[in-house]
């Protein structure tokens, strides 16, 4: 079998998107049902949505919550994962807990957390943080565990303290793995963002999506799906770019995402 180096050519995904849109257009024309408007109609709706101040505010609110939750999760999860990777005891203490939290649908905690914190930003941000943390902890742990012992011994021999070793030796060495977690975490952040807004419909992309569905504005539904899809793709490309500029010495890993919404 052949394993080819992945070349990040930018026009293949573009072609794929155009192909998908063409397929959608064709299916809509052939089926002719109101539940599936043609791709052209949905795309024509895009400028109207993106030019509307209220819609933009909603999208901005979604992104703000997502980024807050995402950054909080990174600040929390990366150190925990790295410490777990360097201490057998910490790993033994926290692995069972993580294993039990792993299959819990984080976005489904929304109704319960809403009881405590209301339907505002706090609940949604917490749910997003929870969703992102798990894969980041897992991959940071795996990355820190695999760091060459000799590197750490050398650093210790040169008089580096424990914290400095973690920050200046373990973190850079584990960074490629950490990025695998970050990339998975980003997808999860988007999923929990949309789902939490669908459950507590107040502001945000998810609430526009479901309100449009309820009001039978089908082209808006599809236009919003395109926007969310674009958001996912663009953020993924940005993370990939950041990864490339930080850890270009490492092989790009397309690991199977370990983590769930």
């Amino acid at each position, binding site marked *: *079998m*052949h*394993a*080819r180096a992945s070349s990040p050519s930018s026009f*293949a*995904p573009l*072609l*794929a998107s155009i*192909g*998908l849109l063409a397929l959608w257009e064709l299916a809509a024309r052939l089926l002719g*049902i109101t*539940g*599936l408007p043609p791709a052209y109609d949905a795309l024509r709706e895009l400028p109207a949505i993106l030019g509307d101040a209220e819609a933009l505010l909603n999208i901005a609110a979604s992104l703000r919550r997502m980024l807050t939750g995402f950054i909080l999760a990174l600040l929390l999860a990366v150190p925990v994962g790295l410490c777990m990777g360097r201490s*057998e*005891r910490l790993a*033994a*203490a*926290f692995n*069972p*807990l993580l*294993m*039990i939290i*792993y*299959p*819990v*649908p984080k*976005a*489904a*905690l929304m*109704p*319960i957390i*809403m*009881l*405590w914190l209301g339907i505002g930003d706090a609940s949604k941000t917490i749910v997003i943080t929870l969703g992102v943390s798990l894969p980041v902890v897992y991959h940071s742990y795996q990355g820190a565990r695999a760091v060459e012992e000799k590197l750490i011994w050398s650093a210790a021999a040169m008089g580096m303290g424990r914290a400095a070793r973690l920050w200046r030796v373990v973190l850079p060495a584990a960074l490629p793995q950490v990025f695998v977690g970050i990339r998975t975490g980003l*997808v999860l952040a*988007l*999923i929990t*963002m*949309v*789902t939490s807004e*669908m*459950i507590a419909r107040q502001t945000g*992309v998810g609430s526009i*999506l*479901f309100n*449009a*569905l309820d009001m039978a504005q089908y082209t808006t539904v599809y236009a*919003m*799906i395109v926007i969310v*899809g674009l958001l*996912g*793709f663009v*953020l*993924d490309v940005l993370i990939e770019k950041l990864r490339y500029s930080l850890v270009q010495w490492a092989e790009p890993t*397309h690991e*199977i*995402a*370990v983590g*769930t*919404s």
Partner: protein
Amino acid sequence: MRAGRTCLPVLGALPLACLLALWQSVAAAGLAPAALLPAPAAVFARLLEQVHNPVFLAHAATTLLRLFAGFGIALLIGLTLGLAAASNRWAEALIRPLWRVLAPVPKIALYPALVLLLGFEHASKIALVVADAVFPILLATYQGTAAVEPKLVWAARAAGAGRHRALLTVVLPAALPMILTGARVALIISAIVVFLAEMLSSTDGLGHLLVYASRSFQTVDMFVPLITISIIGLLLNAGFNGLRKRLLAGFPEEG
């Protein structure tokens, strides 16, 4: 070091026990009203009670049906596309950009469209599970297959096996460890996605039970379906690990 090793499992139980104790004591001390945070003992008692309730079991069965239908279809599609992408240049050129575009899209956003196309019944939920579960399987199959030692394939071809036969009898078994890892991740994703889909719009299933309970502020009944789906996820994970051990007897253990 050796003495430290034997107490590691005990160490693992510690945070869990602390969490449960904290939850119980917060509830028992009356720091949070029972309507907001029921005691864990109450939740688990209710869970045990519901396990004998035929209505609850029917909801759970609906959820499981959707879960397995979606996972099965995703497995079929993921394996086929993954094998195709790894063994055929043209298929790869077609599939890779598609998955590059579609994988980071939060599939749950497609759910309204799926409801419009397939209705509120099983089909839309199963379709969402397929959309979410197919990518880990596809990626694992592709990578597992691409990493198979080419000499194995050459040997099989030299011994007279055809292209397809070599694919099925040599490549697929050699890629099995990776494929099973992907499938296990997909299985847990399926459990979560089916629950979320049922929460968003449905009249049955465990996810519906949670939303139904939250509308009438039955906090205990909100925890029960959530814990049930998590236990289902844990059991599926454990079952899959068992299956993996049997299928992969002789393969090196996963790190």
